[in-house]
């Protein structure tokens, strides 16, 4: 059930009415309903995926409880590693198994065998997101950062909460589980904000991301038809497509959670304003960066004596894992590795330890850091998007040989105006979570309603057949 589908709209209306109809006094019933609704939402893709999410939830729920009860350190460690192995095992089987087999076959020149490639199943939607969420819970319980929850329903809801189940934000247990334990009152203002944020997210996804997607696909499906300027331009558009697609999804997720009285974490902070690649990762998919920092980078560097070399290796390893988290393919590994390498280079002190590239970029006029960051990230995004090595080779060879044969096109013409509108609106409302927040404070009601109707009209008028969100595949 895609957020940009009629099915989801209908589901949301029914779920909303039942949820608040249950009454705020009956918290247990409300939570149970959230669980049933979340499982229904998830089963809409494939009911068999439910078995996996329930199994994963139970493993971590029990692991948390037994870790807390256990007095022996070694037993606690065994329990922690059992949970981690289970989670990584599930991820490996469903997401990475075929990649490793294929790479192994290619490395040793073994003829492809269908016996090995038996695991020919679709990756369960949202697997990487909820697995990371449950894993962080067990690790936090082990490190005594949080107490385990005794309430199974709360835990199952934490893993499967439908607004953020399939593509985040990746929530920490300490932030989300207490919200299931607290009575939630209906809040008129929050509901309005929720609907507005959903509207904004839909606009970003349907009007901007999908239109940019059509143009980008057109160019990169036949890169030999286009000159290097168009290829670079399409690469930049892909960066904005990815941003509008994922941040649009996140806005819908956060808005939906608001309708049900929940608060989810911020996942984007104007990444196109980043002054360096290091900065981009503080602004892009923030909850994922936070997860890898807390559970990979910090444990890695703290297990060695503090040194810049260890820090650098830690960054490269962590970023390579971030890349690999996105998908089981070499391009994602290379994407992550290069991001890590650039971040390390940006942090190396130059001119007798006086300045780093990162600091230099922050102090230069914004236009320079913008060109540096957007240019570099566009190239990295091309690696991210590549469907094959041959395709990437062709694109890069045309870009870096400044190929002028082939067509130049502005790709989406006047529709580019929608992207400019989005960017301006976000820039003018930097301090807000999204541009329409507290809309009533500065716009009178009739104008507001006209604006809402205009948004709805544009969304409906220009919507393409429903398109999945890019991050759903991860």
């Amino acid at each position: 059930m895609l957020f940009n589908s009629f099915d989801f709209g209908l589901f949301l209306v029914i779920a909303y009415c039942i949820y608040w109809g249950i009454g705020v006094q009956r918290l247990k019933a409300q939570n149970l309903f959230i669980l049933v609704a979340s499982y229904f939402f998830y089963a809409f893709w494939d009911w068999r995926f439910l078995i996996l999410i329930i199994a994963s939830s139970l493993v971590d729920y029990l692991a948390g409880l037994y870790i807390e009860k256990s007095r022996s350190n070694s037993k606690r460690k065994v329990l922690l590693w059992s949970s981690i192995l289970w989670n990584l095992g599930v991820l490996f089987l469903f997401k990475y198994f075929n990649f490793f087999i294929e790479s192994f076959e290619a490395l040793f020149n073994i003829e492809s065998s269908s016996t090995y490639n038996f695991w020919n199943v679709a990756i369960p939607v949202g697997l990487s997101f909820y697995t990371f969420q449950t894993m962080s819970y067990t690790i936090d319980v082990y490190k005594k950062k949080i107490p385990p929850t005794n309430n199974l329903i709360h835990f199952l809801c934490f893993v499967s909460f439908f607004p953020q189940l399939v593509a985040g934000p990746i929530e920490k247990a300490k932030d989300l589980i207490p919200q299931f334990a607290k009575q939630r009152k209906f809040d008129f203002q929050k509901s309005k904000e929720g609907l507005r944020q959903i509207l904004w997210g839909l606009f970003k996804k349907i009007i901007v991301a999908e239109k940019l997607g059509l143009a980008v696909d057109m160019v990169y499906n036949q890169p030999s038809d286009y000159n290097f300027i168009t290829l670079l331009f399409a690469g930049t558009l892909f960066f904005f497509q990815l941003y509008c697609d994922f941040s649009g999804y996140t806005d819908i997720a956060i808005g939906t959670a608001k309708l049900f009285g929940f608060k989810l974490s911020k996942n984007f902070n104007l990444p196109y304003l980043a002054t360096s690649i290091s900065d981009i990762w503080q602004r892009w998919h923030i909850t994922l960066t936070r997860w890898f920092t807390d559970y990979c980078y910090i444990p890695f560097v703290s297990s060695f004596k503090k040194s810049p070399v260890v820090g650098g290796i830690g960054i490269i390893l962590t970023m390579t894992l971030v890349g690999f988290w996105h998908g089981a393919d070499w391009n994602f590994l290379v994407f992550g590795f290069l991001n890590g390498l650039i971040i390390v280079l940006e942090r190396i002190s130059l001119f007798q330890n006086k300045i780093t590239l990162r600091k230099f970029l922050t102090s230069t006029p914004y236009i320079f850091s913008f060109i540096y960051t957007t240019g570099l990230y566009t190239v990295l995004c091309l690696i991210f998007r590549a469907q094959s090595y041959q395709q990437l080779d062709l694109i890069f060879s045309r870009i870096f040989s400044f190929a002028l044969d082939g067509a130049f096109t502005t790709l989406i013409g006047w529709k580019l105006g929608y992207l400019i509108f989005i960017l301006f609106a976000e820039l003018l409302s930097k301090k807000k979570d999204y541009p329409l927040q507290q809309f009533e404070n500065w716009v009178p009601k009739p104008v507001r309603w006209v604006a809402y109707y205009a948004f709805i009209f544009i969304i409906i008028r220009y919507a393409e057949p429903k398109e999945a969100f890019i991050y759903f595949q991860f």
Partner: protein
Amino acid sequence: MQRKFITYSLLFFIPVLVGFLAVEWLTISIPSHFSVNKKYIEKSGDSIETLILGTSHLMNAVNPEWMESPTLNLASGNQFLDTDLKLYNGIREKFPSVKNVVLEISYSHFEIAPNGKDFWKNSLYYKYYDVNCFERTAYFKDRLVYLSNPSFFSERIEEYYIDKKNIPSFNEYGFNSNDGYGQFTKQNYNKVKIDTIKRFRINIEPNLNLFETNVATLFKLLDSLKKQNKNVVISATPMYLTFLKKRNPEILNRRDSIFNVIQKKYPEVKFLTAETDTIHYSLKNFWNHSHLNPSGATIFTRQLESVLQSFK
């Protein structure tokens, strides 16, 4: 508070709903290949002897009016083999007299992604042909035409009701004789200008995984037709020279190798491969690089008719 929110929401969304219903009504009121086919099926379904499946190449290339036996052209834009299979299986019982089935295997037919269960035209098959291609239980929303592709139908509404251009002119068999005067007409059929058009739709990216999937689907369809003793014609419509030049030989060879397999495995299947036919077709018979216009359709329909005659 809750009541206030619900009241406000209703007040806000009722006009949206009314507007949407109006747009849906405007959409279904525009004559379409599907709605005309529906009427034709209701009127003559029992007597139909030939079914045409495939993409817009065949939809534009066969005018049932000029066929000797009653023919229904179910081909439609971007309708690939997986949908052909689902559509045929879902609709065949409505046509007890069908003897011949015409399939399309164009140059890159095997290396294009199948439509899948989320193909937007599934709503049209469901609404007009009563065939569920969604691979799930369908419900009322699945019959809503405008919602299946708002951007596409908004343009049709603007063209039909506001600009009053590209008004379709369907005969009673669903063939649009006003379709096809587009891209090449814009260039006044000037060969030099047409030959210099750099971009047009053609797939040149080989994809072995898709190839395997699509070939398997085709064989499934052919097996099913063989069991039902249907005469099968596999066709490839003519393409203009610019298109022919741009084809990827790897994709082409793989497609042709499957033609050889079919000839051995299903000797009763006949072929109408007019893809490179430059004798019968000239520039004036195309409306763009890969589609025939109605004058080209006259020639292709005649060729198809003679292949079908050979079954007798």
